[in-house]
């Protein structure tokens, strides 16, 4: 298994091959190739005009790419459009609602359009309304909802037909903190059930925390893609700095012991109990290292990470022109 996380022989949830999207003379997406494994939350980030929405629209088969192929669960979306559509839940940026309908009527229409009927339809509508916490607005007119509520309603609509791939373009915009936490939980649960989530957001710290994988898009080009740590590492050119605080002062072998561990370099002792070091490994490796420390008698009571953020990367892209 490589950094894409796709086991050999298994088709990825999304496979994009040489994607190019033109709007007249403007090149929106340039030769993008990307594989996203099943069951992950993948964040696509980039400055405005990077090509995120165009990519999302092409994935949702709303836009025909100039060239390139897109496979959802191994199906070419151009030749198996209806099957692909039934597997996709797409939530556009500034998601609109039908203002002349009630909340339940809005969901009922889309449930019907996805082939749900009878008791299954009613149950699923109730489930989705409960998931996004909109029970109290069940009979409210859509136009009376706040922006955040509308976002939640559209999220419910997107999940109605249990899609295996959710494409969410700025889903958290307009949501309050409670709803955003709720959204994160919903997405986590969906991933556990095997769904794949492709998301873009301007709330970058939240995105790094929520996503398993990241892709950085700039002027239509995919600059990097992989695990969050890997991307941040490669994009900043700096190794993440891990800070630890030991419960008791270590013995004299401590520094040597730490230096001997894999992925560790540049150890600095700030005082007798606080140390920092650069770390090249992934989250799993770090967990293993911490376990080893405890087993070796070095009790860790606090761990923190200091790294250049995604915001810094995007600011660099916007101002430096990359």
């Amino acid at each position, binding site marked *: 298994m490589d950094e894409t996380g796709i086991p050999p022989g298994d088709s990825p949830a999304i496979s994009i091959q*040489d994607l*190019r999207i*033109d709007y*007249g*003379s403007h090149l929106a997406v340039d030769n993008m190739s990307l594989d996203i494994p099943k069951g992950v939350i993948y964040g696509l980030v980039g400055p405005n005009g990077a090509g995120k929405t165009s990519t999302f629209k092409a994935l*949702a*088969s*709303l*836009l*025909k790419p*100039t*060239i*390139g192929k897109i496979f959802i*669960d191994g*199906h070419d979306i151009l030749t198996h459009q*209806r*099957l692909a*559509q*039934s*597997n*996709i839940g*797409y939530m*556009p940026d500034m998601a*609109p*609602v*039908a*203002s*002349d*309908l*009630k909340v339940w*009527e809005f969901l*009922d*229409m*889309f*449930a*019907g*359009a*996805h*082939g749900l*009927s009878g008791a299954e339809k009613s149950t699923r509508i109730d489930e989705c309304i409960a998931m996004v916490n909109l029970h109290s607005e069940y009979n409210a007119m859509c136009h009376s909802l706040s922006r955040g509520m509308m976002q939640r309603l559209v999220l419910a*609509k997107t999940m109605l*037909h*249990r899609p*295996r791939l959710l494409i969410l373009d700025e889903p958290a915009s307009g949501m309050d903190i409670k709803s955003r936490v709720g959204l994160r939980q919903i997405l986590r649960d969906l991933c556990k059930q095997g769904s794949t989530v492709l998301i873009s957001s301007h709330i970058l710290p939240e995105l790094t925390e929520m996503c398993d994988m990241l892709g950085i898009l700039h002027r239509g080009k995919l600059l990097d893609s992989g695990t969050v740590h890997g991307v941040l590492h490669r994009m900043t050119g700096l190794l993440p700095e891990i800070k630890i605080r030991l419960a008791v002062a270590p013995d004299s072998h401590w520094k040597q012991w730490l230096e001997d561990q894999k992925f560790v370099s540049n150890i600095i002792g700030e005082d007798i109990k606080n140390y920092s070091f650069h770390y090249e490994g992934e989250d799993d490796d770090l967990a293993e290292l911490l376990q080893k420390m405890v087993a070796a008698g070095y009790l860790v009571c606090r761990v923190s990470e200091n790294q250049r953020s995604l915001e810094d990367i995007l600011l660099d892209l916007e101002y430096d022109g990359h």
Partner: protein
Amino acid sequence: MSDKAQTERLKILPQWWQLWRNPIFHRYRRSRLRVSSLITGALLYGGTSLLFYLMALGVTVTQTELPFEETAVYPFGLLVFLQIFILNFVGTGEVAAGMARESVDEVLTYQRLTPLSPATKIIGYLVGLPVRQFYHFILTVPVTVIIITTGQIPTEIWLPIYAVLFTSTLMFYLLAMSVGFIMGKRFSALISQGLVALLYFALPQLSNFGFVIFEYLTIRPALFAAANKMLPKVKMFEHDQYALFYHWEVSHTIYCIVLQCLIAWIFYSLMLRRWRRESSHLLSKVQSVAIVSILHIITLGGVWANTSNGSIFDVQIQTRNPEMALLQQTVSENVELIAASVLALYGIIGFSFAILLQYIYTPDKFRYIAGLRERKNQDKTPYAVLSDSASGIPTSLLITLITTVAWLIYSNHLSQSPRIAEFIAGESWLPIDTMLIAVSVTTLLSHGLSLEYLGKKLNGTIACFTWVTPLAVALLLSAWSFGEKASSFIYGFSPLSMHFSPGYLIVGLHNSEDPTLFIYGCQVGLFVYFSVGLYCVIRIIQRHKRFMLMRESNSFLAKN
């Protein structure tokens, strides 16, 4: 959910004919037929229809000694007008506005993503958007049934009216859906209602020149035929019993229904293509050729018999104004003037069809290049013919050929019409046909080529300017006595006025005075448009070659 389960679910999705399961229809049934709407509609339209009935009944009972069977025609007529107003005018606006709103609000995007078939979606909107108007119509039905039964209005009167009312409603709703869906502007409702008004009141005037096709796009022929049967003494409703299509006698109702269904099918095709793929052209190249052929067959069919029997030369203007009466007499005596106008009108109608279609099927340069890239990527030949991104030049050639041949056929049919044959009296028709071919081929091809080279916006702007400016300048010059000759010459520059040149030659057949200034103007104009077309075709070829060269160098770089 597994692929198998998803495939099973696709199988149970509502089909286009299962209206009771159509979620889009139910969406509008719910939102447009809430209790308040039901009550208001019942009071307004139920009350109005009842009022019409009671008024007629009251007048019959109190003021005349006539039985209701004889006066029933009046409330029936009023009700039919109310129903036309509800279905054709209000309904059309409602469909266009609703569709535009869905498009502007982007709710349509969600519908695109549902796995319902495009036909199911179209039917859902077609029946759902005007559901309130259907309810209002249904409210008028009980009173209509009472009037028909008590007034003993025969089936052959009311059945054709309602048959044509429903087909015209279908046609107008599909027109409105197309306008709302494609334009996606909030004022689409106004545009659609404007188009309905144009179809109802302006275009049918062309039937005075023999182009009856435009009259049959409305319910008017069916209404007039029914009114003629019910009120035979009223001169206004005098009407031939049959319509003529080439030499066949066709019932007015059948003619209306077939024509309206055909136009409805064209709009349905537009919608279907756009539902399947938002970026698709409204019509494919094959559909464009088929449509232009069918439109010419129908237009020719309508004007054919009127030309053969000479009825297009009978100018009938109801007037008491002595000057107008004199003008009518002068025109009637000069058959060549009528022949010239009808021939020019046919040319302009054909030109309009072709230009409209050129705007639909011609790709802009970006799309053309995108098509080349796509085909390169798929290792296909770069010379596609039928795809949307393929060059529109072959299709333009074909459509130009069809348009020119149709115009030529009509021109020769006109020359064999007894009154014109008498007028020609042995003179050659060849110069007229030659001018006709030159005008049709040059204007259509140069426009098609410049459209492909310059793109829709730039070409549209330049075309408007070059078509209208010569007319405006010539009009201004003609106001001064010294500018008359120059104005005749400049009139010839515009492709619109060029279509009058074959007719102008008919008028000049027996005119010893040399009527060449306008014709010289046309010839200069034709030369200019021919040069423009030639320039555009060279530039298009160069553009294609440049891309191919780039493609080869890229392949070379990739290999090395």
